[in-house]
């Protein structure tokens, strides 16, 4: 059992591109759910359009990567508007159902064999993200490594996560600036009671739409990073659980806080990878009965996700406000 390796793996996951993507998804969700009270269960749809908008622009249409990034973000806005117009006037639960359905419809359409010519269909799509890596300031020789001990990255990875975390910081700052204003106060009033907001002259629909678009674009940015990181996109990467992972990260860190979703994303990946690495090491231990070892090997990923789920349950029981949330605020719900 080598705890150095376990820790190194966990730390790499906690600060790697996957955590960046999850953080962006969770920040967007925080704008929707945390501040405005929009129960968006289709956040993955925004990531999908960000990733496929970028990938398809470059791979299918031969446009530049930067055009692709813009296309990805524009598609996220389009999804928000298309979802918002018919559904934002509906009850919160209806909105939740429509969002999860819309995200699934898009994923299934994009992954269908009929879409092979456009999106690669089930075969996934890949493109050359060279334009991004050309800007990489980190020397990226075969032996260049950045970090300490087992917590290290290659030059290319360093470039992705540098850009990624800078983006996360910028987005968090913008969210902080717009939400800690009278505009943000209206969002929160809509979350608390939209009829009260209406009775004071606020155009609830318009504010919800703005929040939906902003949170959606932030999710779309996560998708763009995902596309660049993997130089492509695969429909299987955008199943509904991505949305639920983002909710987990958000609730873990603390909804309706500014740093909560980022902290939550880091912790989510740290925990998940720590457990998985630990189980992988455990299944190799000689003293373990063969039957148990057989069961464990190959199931580490599944078990670690289950453990994350268990963590969420415990969190809801003992610290429902998340790590950075405000307990008294949370308890008001019970009144």
């Amino acid at each position, binding site marked *: 059992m080598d705890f150095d390796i376990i820790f190194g793996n966990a730390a790499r996951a906690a600060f790697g591109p996957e955590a960046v993507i999850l953080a962006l998804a969770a920040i967007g969700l925080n704008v929707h759910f945390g501040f405005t009270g929009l129960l968006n269960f289709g956040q993955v749809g925004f990531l999908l359009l960000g990733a496929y908008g970028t990938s398809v622009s470059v791979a299918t249409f031969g446009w530049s990567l930067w055009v692709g990034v813009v296309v990805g973000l524009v598609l996220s806005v389009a999804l928000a508007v298309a979802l918002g117009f018919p559904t934002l006037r509906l009850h919160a639960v209806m909105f939740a159902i429509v969002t999860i359905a819309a995200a699934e419809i898009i994923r299934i359409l994009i992954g269908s064999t009929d879409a092979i010519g456009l999106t690669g269909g089930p075969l996934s799509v890949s493109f050359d993200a060279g334009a991004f890596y050309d800007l990489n300031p980190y020397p990226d020789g075969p032996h260049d490594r950045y970090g300490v001990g087992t917590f290290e990255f290659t030059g290319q990875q360093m470039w992705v996560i540098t850009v990624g975390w800078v983006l996360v910081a910028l987005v968090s700052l913008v969210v902080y*600036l*717009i939400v800690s204003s009278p*505009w943000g106060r209206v969002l929160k009033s809509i979350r608390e009671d939209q009829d009260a907001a209406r009775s004071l002259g606020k155009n609830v629909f318009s504010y919800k739409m703005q929040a939906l678009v902003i949170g959606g674009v932030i999710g779309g940015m996560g998708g763009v990073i995902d596309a660049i990181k993997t130089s492509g996109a695969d429909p299987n990467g955008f199943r509904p659980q991505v949305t639920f992972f983002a909710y987990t990260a958000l609730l873990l860190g603390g909804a309706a806080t500014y740093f909560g979703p980022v902290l939550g994303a880091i912790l989510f990946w740290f925990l998940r990878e720590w457990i998985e690495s630990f189980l992988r090491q455990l299944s190799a231990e000689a003293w373990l009965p063969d039957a148990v070892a057989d069961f464990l090997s190959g199931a580490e990923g599944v078990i670690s996700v289950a453990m994350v789920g268990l963590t969420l349950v415990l969190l809801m029981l003992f610290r429902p406000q998340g790590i950075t949330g405000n307990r008294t605020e949370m308890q008001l719900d019970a009144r």
Partner: protein
Amino acid sequence: MPDDVMPPPESASAEAEIEPILTVPPVPGAPKPNPLLVVDDLSRSFGGLRAVDVDHLEVERGVVTALIGPNGAGKTTLFNLLTGFDRADTGRWSFNGEAVVAPSPDQLARKGMIRTFQLTKSLAKLTVLDNVLLGAPRQVGERLSAAPFRSRWQDQEQANTEKAGELLERFNLAHMRDDLAGTLSGGQRKLLEVARALMADPVLIMLDEPMAGVNPALAQSLMGHITRLAFEGLTVVFIEHAMEVVTGISDWVVVLAQGQIIAEGPPWKAIHDEVVIDAYLGRRRAEAGS
């Protein structure tokens, strides 16, 4: 009565103008000298039940009007219709000299028709101060394009905060301004909601049972506030069940029963009207008594 009989929106001194209302004949649908709100043929049915069926109603400007009636008379439904929270089946109304077309609650509120709710809608996870600040009209910082730039809205926010502070002082909530509204008592929430409504610079304030659940001392002070508001020129319409409140602070009473206006008049007349007693207590008792 059609819209053309509307008098011009005049700015006559509000104080001491309680008098003209006393010249109005105490009959349902009576025309008023200077109406702020004029309602015609307003109806709303739920299934077979005609919840509201008002032929004509005028609300006099700068006066405290009480809307009373037995449970289920349609008082709150009438509020909901007039403020755009519910859609009328038929009817038209004008507010402040302007016909209300395709009413939406936020538009009407921006025109100065501000209501409160029977079940208080305090925003639990916002501070008391933020609750009141939310009421402020025409906030630059509520536009997304200005929100990130503090310098563009902080002066207005500062002025609003001062005004909110005064309102909280007036309603004895100043010491709780930084507490979350969810921690207030039921009565304090009622006061907060009225303070928030006043922050919106209303022309007409519509209070749905403002005294319900408020302890007698607080209710007394709230009644004082309402009289003072009317004195300052605000038009007040409120729904109330407690007769001592109605007689205490209203200048005019409109009685609703089964969706219809059955009586109108100054409080001392209206609540002794035989039709009103019938409506509250049932015809049989009235007949037996006669």
